């Protein structure tokens, strides 16, 4: 390893230590920033040491949960996952995870057992692929998100096409067959790449409701408007093009049955065996609600299968899964249950609202709408989000965050009344919501990204648990 690379790793480690000593959180991002500034070879030099290679997870929604599931699966399979946690998914976040795992001499701690499990921001993928040369890339979905940052959803699709031209020979692309924008990535894959499709075959999981937030309505090959035999949500479903005959590919890893099970989900995953043997069947009881989480579990299982991990650790890790940071994460505060569900774009938030609506009993709702850089400055997406879904069971609601007034107006239209209360300050909003929630009842907190970081810190403090997880929460969204 070049002396410059070793020096960069050491500098990154020192920066992280200094940041922690100053009480500035876990120090993850700063370590990566420092190391990457000094030497751009840090990521390839460290990632290249992992004997089991790297699996990369990207997409608009679900990449944090899916990559955390993959990390738990790898651990259950006896590997040592090296994972960039909780949204630190730009180049600096990946560099930080690698640097923190390395010795001062620039060696990973146990390279022979290490598998890098990397959550990567959609727009960062073209930089990460040549740097870590992944064995497997899992794509979850492509929705509109932070359009003020990317301009158009198509900008992200084009960045992915660029990334795939740099994929190393033999890379496996794990693609969501139900998302036409992801499925078509096979068209751009290098000839040496393997493609593994996953999807939900169970048509009963589809809804009949009109999809207001749907971001890919036309065929990416011929431009005709797509038709759907089943729509799960947004533009996710069993799609086909009446124009050119393009259609949803048959998935090799598929959910054949999915249903609500208590506050979780029961699902059956069937995977084709590679050499004509009988297909594998995995029955999973997932402790998370919502079809989108079943999809996350499916994507993680497909990624694990692409890595040739056996069914037993996949099932064990998914059944023992604890929610990722702010994604159905639960707190218990003085006899109340508080559940935090991140909602950062119309498709994701509509799924969260559907999940809340399915919960029994009366609900208390604390919605946050921030317009920070990591949230997106444009809040017009709330008008494509079906807040109406959560109105029937709601007995109390508060609109909070830097754009609380926009949110209160949207909630008025969703039937929550003319006078939805407004609270800009996060701490005041949390205090007020806890006061309004009697012991034994549940408060649902639905924040955008930057609000989620702040709110779960406030809740963790009230609960008395450490606010900073290992890995910290200074993510990049």
């Amino acid at each position, binding site marked *: 390893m070049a002396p410059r690379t070793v020096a960069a790793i050491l500098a990154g480690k020192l920066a992280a230590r200094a940041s922690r000593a100053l009480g500035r959180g876990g120090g993850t991002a700063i370590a990566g920033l420092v190391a990457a500034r000094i030497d751009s070879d840090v990521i390839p030099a460290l990632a290249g040491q992992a004997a089991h290679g790297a699996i990369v997870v990207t997409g608009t929604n679900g990449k944090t949960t899916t990559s955390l599931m993959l990390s738990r699966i790898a651990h259950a399979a006896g590997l040592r996952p090296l994972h960039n946690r909780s949204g630190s998914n730009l180049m600096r976040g990946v560099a930080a995870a690698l640097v923190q795992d390395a010795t001062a001499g620039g060696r990973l701690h146990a390279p022979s057992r290490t598998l890098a499990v990397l959550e990567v921001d959609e727009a960062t993928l073209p930089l990460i692929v040549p740097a870590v040369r992944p064995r497997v890339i899992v794509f979850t979905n492509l929705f509109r998100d932070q359009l003020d940052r990317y301009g158009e959803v198509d900008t992200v699709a084009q960045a992915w096409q660029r990334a795939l031209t740099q994929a190393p020979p033999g890379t496996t692309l794990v693609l969501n067959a139900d998302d036409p924008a992801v499925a078509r990535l096979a068209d751009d894959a290098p000839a040496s790449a393997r493609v593994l499709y996953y999807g939900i075959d169970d048509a009963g999981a589809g809804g009949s409701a009109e999809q207001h937030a749907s*971001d890919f309505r036309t065929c990416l090959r011929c431009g005709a408007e797509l038709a759907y035999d089943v729509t799960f949500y947004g533009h996710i479903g069993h799609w086909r093009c009446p124009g050119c005959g393009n259609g949803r590919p048959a998935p090799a890893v598929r959910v054949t049955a999915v249903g609500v099970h208590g506050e979780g989900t029961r699902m059956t995953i069937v995977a084709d065996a590679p050499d004509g043997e009988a297909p594998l069947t995995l029955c999973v009881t997932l402790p998370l609600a919502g079809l989108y989480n079943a999809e996350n579990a499916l994507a993680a299982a497909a990624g694990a299968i692409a890595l040739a991990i056996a069914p037993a650790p996949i099932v064990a890790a998914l059944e023992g899964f604890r929610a990722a940071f702010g994604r159905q994460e639960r707190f218990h505060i003085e006899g109340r249950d508080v559940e935090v569900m991140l909602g950062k774009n119309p498709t994701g938030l509509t799924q969260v609202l559907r999940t809340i609506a399915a919960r029994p009993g009366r609900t208390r709702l604390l919605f946050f709408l921030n317009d920070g850089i990591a949230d997106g400055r*444009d809040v017009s997406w709330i008008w494509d989000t079906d807040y109406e879904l959560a109105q029937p069971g709601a007995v109390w609601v508060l609109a909070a965050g830097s754009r609380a007034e926009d949110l209160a107006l949207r909630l008025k239209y969703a039937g929550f009344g003319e006078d939805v209360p407004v609270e800009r300050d996060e701490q005041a909003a949390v205090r007020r919501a806890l006061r309004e929630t009697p012991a034994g009842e549940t408060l649902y907190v639905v924040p955008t990204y930057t609000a989620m970081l702040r709110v779960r810190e406030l809740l963790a403090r009230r609960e008395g648990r450490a606010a900073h997880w290992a890995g910290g929460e200074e993510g990049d969204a």
Partner: protein
Amino acid sequence: MTAPVLRVAHLYPRLMNIYGDRGNIMCLRHRCEARGIGFELTELGMGESFHGDAYDLVFAGGAQDREQRGVAYDLLATKAAALRAAVEDGVALLAVCGAYQLFGRFYRDASGAELPGAGVFDLSTEHPGVDAKRCIGNIICEWQPAGRRSRPEALPAAIVTIVGFENHGGRTRLGPGARPFARVRHGFGNNGEDGSEGAVYRNAIGTYVHGSLLPKNPVLADAVLAAALERRYGAIELTPIDDRAELRAHAAALRLR
């Protein structure tokens, strides 16, 4: 006398829907229903023809360049001539962002390819290329409502602020047959240079402001509603409704930069 009914045509609701423009339709419906005015919505997609007599108001929203291409040719083939005639006849129209561009004379996209427009407005739009900065951010502008055609003696109304968000690559220039909808106080507007925002021709308004536009600009929403109803029902006095949440959102947006 039977209660008036507002008949709205929403063009390409499934393809031109990227910036929450559905909120504009929700707003018009709410402001009609709160006053006992009927509301009839017709969604017109690809291949469906447009008949100007059947509607009082036409609405179309924003899209990405890719969807815009497909829509542009369908618009010309199935709707543009009837749309132009309807606007000449006084039918109200509101076009936001992508639809605003498509209702001009042409749109030259980032690759230099030219898309023909419907020609409702005398304007053209050019995207300066993939490397040019998009016009993205909160926008505040000043709009002077026109006096009612039925009451030419009325003084022009006071200046009204319009708030929202803009996100467009194309730069729009107006020809002599269109006048600006508003003046930019903060943001880019048509082209980021001449201070103009949007375009007005007869009862048609085109604008880059989404957010959604109408819910938190209730004065504009009522002006659009009144203009749409006037052609068939004469001047209708719109009774005041509870706009506290609307005005709070408007006031909060005035502080955004």
